């Protein structure tokens, strides 16, 4: 006889009292160790439901919720990390448990605890049914195992026609290959309104010979590059980088009086 299929008979301490027999307790401990073997919380719930030893349609969802919460609690004690979806399920079951235990609040909208419990029971029954169906399917006579196709290719006709074939996977992979080609392209800059540091360096080298006095950096930008904001940004950055390069080489001096003040440069006299 089932011992735990009465929703109203909730034990005082579910984590202690829930598991009645030594056998069931041992089972539960085995579950803890084998947590990686489960395919998610629903799978675990289905396994736990077996300890109730009743028809899935008559299962006590309240008892099951307590078993599950007890499981999560013990996992915590044993410092076993549970994946997030197990914890989400635990939170949901805790909510469901409170719904099942507390008298319904008439102001409360949404489904009742019983409706939610019935749905969970349905999900468990359906998963169980699909597993059984899968097992029956695999137990059928299978081609290449119990029955066989013609083994000898026919070679009776002299007519040979070549047909070309492709599978759906080929087609989809080809499409994916084309559409994702850009993802795999090595990184290249293909914006065209870009001034490179090399260009700026070249320009500065030819101009700097005339700059005996302190001159603002911005005056070195090519005229046609200062109108478009994108081009101005690029030219400014490149020219600034180029001045650093020239300063490092010792051919110019570089100064700025204040933060955000204009940067000025001049040719180093003995450079």
């Amino acid at each position: 006889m089932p011992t735990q299929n009465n929703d109203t008979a909730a034990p005082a301490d579910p984590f202690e009292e829930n598991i009645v027999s030594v056998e069931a307790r041992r089972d539960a401990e085995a579950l803890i160790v084998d947590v990686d073997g489960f395919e998610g919380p629903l799978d675990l719930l289905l396994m736990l439901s077996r300890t109730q030893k009743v028809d899935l349609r008559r299962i006590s969802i309240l008892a099951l919720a307590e078993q599950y919460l007890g499981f999560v609690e013990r996992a915590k004690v044993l410092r076993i990390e549970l994946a997030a979806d197990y914890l989400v399920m635990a939170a949901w079951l805790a909510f469901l448990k409170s719904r099942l235990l507390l008298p319904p609040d008439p102001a409360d909208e949404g489904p009742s605890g019983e409706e939610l419990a019935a749905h969970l029971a349905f999900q468990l029954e359906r998963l169980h049914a699909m597993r059984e169906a899968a097992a029956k399917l695999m137990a059928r006579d299978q081609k290449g195992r119990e029955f066989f196709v013609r083994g000898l290719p026919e070679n009776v006709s002299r007519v040979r026609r070549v047909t070309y074939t492709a599978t759906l996977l080929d087609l989809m992979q080809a499409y994916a290959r084309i559409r994702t080609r850009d993802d795999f392209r090595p990184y290249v800059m293909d914006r065209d309104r870009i001034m490179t540091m090399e260009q700026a360096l070249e320009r500065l080298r030819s101009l700097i010979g005339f700059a005996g006095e302190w001159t603002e950096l911005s005056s070195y930008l090519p005229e046609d590059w200062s109108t478009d904001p994108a081009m101005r940004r690029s030219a400014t950055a490149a020219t600034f980088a180029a001045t650093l390069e020239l300063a490092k080489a010792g051919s110019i001096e570089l100064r700025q009086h204040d933060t955000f003040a204009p940067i000025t440069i001049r040719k180093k006299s003995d450079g």
Partner: protein
Amino acid sequence: MEESLFEAPAPEEQERMVEAILFASAEPVTVAEMNARMPHGADGAAAVERLRERYRGRGVRVVRVGDAWAMRTAPDLGFLMQKETVETRKLSRAAIETLAIIAYHQPVTRAEIEEIRGVSVSRGTVDQLLELEWIRFGRRRMTPGRPVTFVVTQGFLDHFGLEHARDLPGLKELRAAGLLDNRPLPGAGEEDAHNEENQGEMFEGE
């Protein structure tokens, strides 16, 4: 009997023809294809039924696969065929369950498979089933996002020796028990608009 230049071959001759056609092909052959290959006026459907009777109880059987026919060795003689057995890639539990869910719930979306199994369908599972040609894409579901659906193929029926998807073991019982319904979580909105379409389309065709 009418006399005509294009008179169809005698029934026994048609039976021989269907026998040769089915025998030569490793893949199931549709009645339409038989008729297309046989002389004008031949009735492949009738001939293949007679042929099935003739092979009843033999070492080779004539079996129906969807709307096609094939010759297969009798399953009770599988023990003689060890040499012929091709070691098939072992399917994971996830793949087997996914296959069963597609077969019993078709047409079914990926989200529905995940809802039933309670976990996401792992990378490669669907890939593997497509590659085996046991599942294919069905019609898109007419719900928001128009998700693709999956259905089982003739190759699936052939592999598992099924005449129709409706011959799946336990299908009727599962349906009667409401376990093939798409029941949404209470209060989770009306996502079951496609339920009707689901039932109508189920196990039609192929």
